[in-house]
Each structure stands twice: as C-alpha cells, then as structure tokens.
C-alpha cells in the first residue's frame, strides 16, 4: 500500500506550490499590493526628499534612505496576505484536511509563509527597479541589491510567520487583520523617516533601539548608501531578522497544532 509519511522538504514544496497557485489565481488581491508599495516610494521621495539636505544625512541620497521603508511596508500586503490565505483555509475547512494529513505541522504553515515571502521579494524587486528609474544609486553594487533582497526574504518570512500565527489564533478575517496592526508601531517607532541622530523625542529613541525593524533599516541603508565598508550593521541586521523568523515561525507552527483542538 502507498500510504506513508511524505518527507518534510517535499511536503513543504507541495504546500508552497499550492499557496502560490492560489495567490496567482486571485490577481485582484496581489496586484493592488504591488501597486501600493510603489506608490509609497513615489510619495515619500516626492514629499520628503528635501530633508536629505540636512547635515546628518551626510549628503546621502534620500531615495536610498527611504527605499527600505517602502520595502518593509510592502510586507503588510505581501507577507501579510499569508494570514488572510490561512483564514480562508480555516473558513472553507481545507485547513482541517491539511491537519489530517501526515505532514508535519511546520510544513503546513511554511507553505503560505514561503509563498507570502516570495510575493514580498518580488515586490521588493519591483520597488528597486522603480527606484533605479527615479535615479537610485546603490553603493554596494549588484551584490548590494542581492543583500537587500536577502534581508527582504528574511523579513518576509518573519512577517508572514507572524501573520499566519495570528490568523490561526484569531480564526477570522477581522481579528487577523487587527493582528497586523502591530505593523504600524513596528514601522513608525523606528528610524523611518530620519536617521537615529535626528530623532528628537527620547522615548522614540528608546523605542527605535528595541525595535527589530530599526536594525533591518540600518542594514539595508548601510548597503545602499555606504556599501560594504562597515559590515557590522549588515551582520546585525541578518542576526536580528533570523531571530525574529525563528520566533514567529515557531509561533505559527505551535498555533497550527492548537488551531482545531482548542475548545
């Protein structure tokens, strides 16, 4: 007889493929996500680029400074969509089917998480292209672009993991959406619009220094503006994001175990 446990990698692959197919068959959900993140890049650049003349920017190009914000905020649509996909699976009973297969619970949550991450990486790629079109110069060169995309990949996994975990706890679209509000403090209580030295309020300085997104911004900005002369912020960025991934993906896998068996 054919029944046997599939292996973890092939299960994850099969689950991811299914999630990608599902996303592609709903273009009305992902196309607006792509559009909105590019829109942010345009308005930030148009509205705020003047402040790059302040001495603290040391002549850096504001476009390179704000590009990471555009990429990180794209996650709310791209990677955040993973949570919405999960709510859909819970609603139509498909998630129970998945839980009834011998696949590991981690493989089950990794499908939508990886698909969400890929969506974010594609968004980031497009944002960078638009950036070049607006006159972006990357100090780190082609390798710099790759590093930015790798950081994006990590951020995508972390954020999608979080949104899947929240969806599994909340079990309905509204609460899952509410869960993504954590995103706002994450992105705005940081060095979002100006460098750390220019932040005035002491409380915001504290918030920014404990916010993992700050380290992500710093790593990306280092690559984009200074290249690889100082690698510590880049390494730190990767470490913080790796830690964040470990936490949120574990959270989602544990939530999957409890999703149906809660009472």
């Amino acid at each position: 007889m054919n029944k046997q446990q599939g292996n973890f990698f092939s299960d994850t692959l099969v689950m991811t493929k299914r999630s990608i197919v599902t996303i592609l068959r709903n273009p009305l959900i992902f196309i607006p996500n792509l559009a909105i993140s590019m829109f942010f890049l345009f308005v930030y650049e148009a509205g705020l680029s003047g402040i790059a003349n302040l001495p603290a920017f040391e002549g850096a190009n504001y476009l390179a400074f704000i590009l990471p914000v555009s990429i990180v905020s794209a996650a709310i649509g791209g990677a955040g969509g993973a949570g919405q996909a999960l709510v859909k699976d819970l609603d139509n009973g498909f998630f129970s089917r998945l839980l009834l297969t011998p696949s590991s619970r981690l493989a089950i949550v990794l499908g939508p998480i990886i698909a969400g991450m890929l969506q974010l990486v594609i968004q980031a790629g497009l944002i960078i292209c638009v950036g070049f079109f607006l006159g972006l110069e990357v100090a780190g060169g082609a390798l710099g672009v790759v590093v930015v995309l790798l950081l994006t990949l990590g951020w995508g996994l972390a954020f999608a993991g979080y949104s899947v975990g929240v969806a599994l706890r909340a079990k309905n679209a509204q609460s899952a959406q509410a869960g993504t509000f954590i995103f706002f403090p994450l992105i705005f209580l940081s060095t979002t619009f100006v460098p750390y030295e220019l932040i005035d309020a002491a409380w915001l300085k504290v918030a920014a220094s404990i916010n993992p997104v700050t380290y992500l911004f710093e790593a990306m900005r280092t690559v984009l503006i200074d290249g690889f002369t100082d690698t510590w912020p880049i390494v730190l960025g990767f470490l913080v994001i790796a830690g964040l991934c470990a936490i949120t993906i574990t959270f989602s896998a544990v939530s999957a175990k409890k999703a149906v068996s809660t009472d």
Partner: protein
Amino acid sequence: MNGTIHVENIEKTFKGDVRAVRGVSFDVADGEFFAFLGPNGAGKSTTVQLLTTLLKPTSGKLEVAGYDVNKDPEKVRLSIGVALQETGIDPDLKGRELLEFQARLFGFSKKEAKKRAEELLELVGLTEDADRLSGKYSGGMRRRLDLAMTLVHQPKILFLDEPTTGLDPANRKAIWREIKRLNKEEGTTIFLTTQYLEEADQLADRISIINKGQIVATGTPAELKRTLGLDAIVLQFDEEEEAISAYDAVATDEYQTERVKNDVTILAENGTSILADVIRKLDERNLHPAQLNVKPPSLDDVFIQVTNEQKEGGLNE
C-alpha cells in the same frame, strides 16, 4: 496494521461548559461497519473529531488502528481517511489538482499521484469536471470530490460524518455502493454517522444511538428493532377535526399516541392485538379513517423512541 477502534469513557467539554460528549465507550472490530446515529447536537461530529486527532478529549482513552490517539497522532493519521461533515476543499484548486496534492502529501510520487487522481475521479464520476475549479462545483460534486480525497491513501479505517448529505438519490446510491464495496471487499473498517436511518439499517453491521453526549442503545439493526421497536398503527383522516376527536377517543395510558395534523399514530408493542380495541373506539364515535395502516417497527421508530424517552426519564442499554 489493524482497523480497530477502542473508546473508553471519553468526555469532551467545550468552553462555556458545553458537555458535548459525556462518557462514551465503544469498540469497533477490524473490518466492521459501524454506524453512529443521533439527533442534531448529540455529539456525533465531536466524537469523530476526537477519534481523528482534530480534538483533544477532556478525559478518557482513545485508540484507533491500535495507536493511542493522544500519543501517536501521526500514526493514526496514516491509517485513517476522514470526510468531515463540512467538506474541506480549496476552491482555488481544480478537482484533479486537489487529488494530486492530497496524494503527494501521503507520500505518492508525482507519477503515482497522477494515476491515483485519475482513478478516483473516475470512481466518483468527476472525470469530466476534473479540470474545473472546485469552487465552481455544485454542492454534491464538492461532496464527491471530498470523499475521493478521503480515499486517496487507501486508509484502513474510514470516518464518514454524514457523507451523503446533499447528494441526489443516484449519487447517494453510488456512494453507498462504494462504501459497501470498500467494507466487504477490502475489509475497510467504516465509522459512519448519518441522519438517514435507512442508510444505517441497510449498511451497518452494528449501530449505536447517541443522544445528548451519551450512548443510549447499541446493537445490530435487527436487534434494535426487535427489542426497542414498536408497531405503529397509523390512522389518516380527511379532516383535522376528525383526527382530533379520534385522538381523544383512542389515547390511553397503555400506549403512546401522537397526532400530527390529520394523522394519528399509535405506538404499541403488539399492534395487531390492540387493533380491534382501536377500531371499536373509533366506531363508537362514528369516526372513519380514510386510511389505516399497521407498520412493523422501523429504525426511525427506535430512534425517535430512544431519543424521546431520554428527555423524560432516561434509558440505558
């Protein structure tokens, strides 16, 4: 690999003190066809979810295919096929894709998965619709696809929670035939919940009736009918007033009498012996039923009787 189920004194209390299952015990033998009957809210689906690793019991012991459900859920999942009361289908995938997906997760290679999907599509009559999005299927088609997904890995034990709900008579018969074949020819153990008593009567080796989270009767269909069934005398009148007077005339403490609109039903252990008595009483009042039938016990009556009696006093096996 064995196809047995062993349940010992399981309880499931949901949040808010909803006691869905209160001390249920039963055994299902390898290759047996076991039916679980009960009114809405009796705890049938909860029991299925407990047995299939989807819910954790508040207390009690559960063994499926020889494995402890709590300790070895993975091994249990490999041995069972489950069609829940609500179908579990991703509407964005096509019928064929869903079956191949399911097969891959049960360790089939790509090629084997394709072949298995083809077989199953044929089996449930969805070959022509295989490449349409399942979200566009009718309710009955979705139900059949769901059953096909349940069978992908040729499970040793099948759990079917009201599998024929929403199917037209032809498709219902086809599904019955297949379930019967799996049971008889492949020796698959079947755990079936249903609202169609006829279904249980025809298919099941043994039936348990559950009410308010407790098993109130167990036996073969014949046993249940013999020990619990009552003959029914059904009087049908042209006018409702006549039926009301007839009800007044015949209702006594000796047997159960019910009236629904123009029909009066008398339930008694030995229908023919009281028939003369009933006719005499009707004659005295000059009441003439348009139709009079005496029916042997049906599983329906057993079901209604067992679940009603519990409302009043309580009846145990």
